[in-house]
């Protein structure tokens, strides 16, 4: 769901750039205060992992492909603030070096995939862990968080396209949110697989607020 240049109206581009810049400014401050030494290399590793994972398109349904987003996984390992920074680094590199996602649309792409996806994924993950107080809930929480993060990002992407009057709202929402609720299932499966692997080998890596 990387939006290229030309799909969004000037107003939507400007608004999303302002929101993303303000959001990232706040997140950078928050991260500086909460960052632990052991998280520094993990942020690098997660960026590299997410970059490669986002290149891996798999067929979803009806001649459409999708790829892993990695936002919920990053938030589970790094917390919501550092995760958003990692996702933003990936999006900036994709945009500037590989022309994947537009420059004028970078604000929107950061808002959808770096800010909203990590925040919603993390909120769902913490909420489930707070309600179900069993260690076995972690995997289910990761799974549901991953699905929600993808659907929320696609919803926001659809909203931006609809507000730009690129295509009728009903069609944009059906296509984007509908398809990503399927892509989200694969995101959920892979996220819970990675989390279950980390729980086995290095449970200390998981973010503790």
């Amino acid at each position, binding site marked *: 769901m990387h939006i290229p240049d030309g799909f969004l109206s000037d107003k939507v581009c400007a608004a999303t750039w302002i929101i993303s810049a303000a959001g990232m400014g706040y997140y950078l401050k928050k991260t500086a205060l909460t960052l632990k030494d052991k998280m520094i290399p993990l942020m*690098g590793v997660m960026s590299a992992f997410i970059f490669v994972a986002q*290149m891996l398109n798999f067929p979803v349904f009806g001649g459409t492909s999708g790829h892993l987003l990695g936002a919920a996984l990053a938030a589970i390992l790094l917390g919501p603030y550092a995760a958003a920074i990692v996702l933003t*680094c990936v999006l900036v*590199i994709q945009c500037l070096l590989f022309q994947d996602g537009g420059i004028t649309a970078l604000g929107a792409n950061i808002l959808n995939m770096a800010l909203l996806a990590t925040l919603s994924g993390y909120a769902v993950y913490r909420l489930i862990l707070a309600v179900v107080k069993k260690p076995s809930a972690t995997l289910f929480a990761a799974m549901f968080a991953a699905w929600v993060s993808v659907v929320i990002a696609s919803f926001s992407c659809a909203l931006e396209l609809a507000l730009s009057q690129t*295509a009728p709202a009903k069609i944009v929402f059906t296509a984007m949110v509908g398809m990503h609720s399927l892509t989200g299932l694969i995101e959920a499966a892979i996220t819970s697989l990675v989390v279950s692997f980390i729980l086995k080998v290095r449970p200390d890596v998981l973010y503790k607020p």
Partner: protein
Amino acid sequence: MLIGLMVAFATLLIFSLFASKLPDSLERLAESRHFSGKEKVVANALLADYSLPGLKNKKLALASAAIAGAVIAFLLSYWLAFLLKRKNKN
């Protein structure tokens, strides 16, 4: 842990060579609603569409782009995290 990571990256890299070439849902929507033509190129990126200038073998170019991107992503995040940590200590 380090070996595990290397294996994970190698696997991802190999898989990326077989990545689906199908359009994603946004490209698909743009095609079906005839707004693909709205796409503009504001600036030409160096490695646009994950290719390397001068490399004709597409698979080799894609794998090189994946490695280059992964290394740059690692360095950028690591450097940023390092700066944030240092700022906090001061």
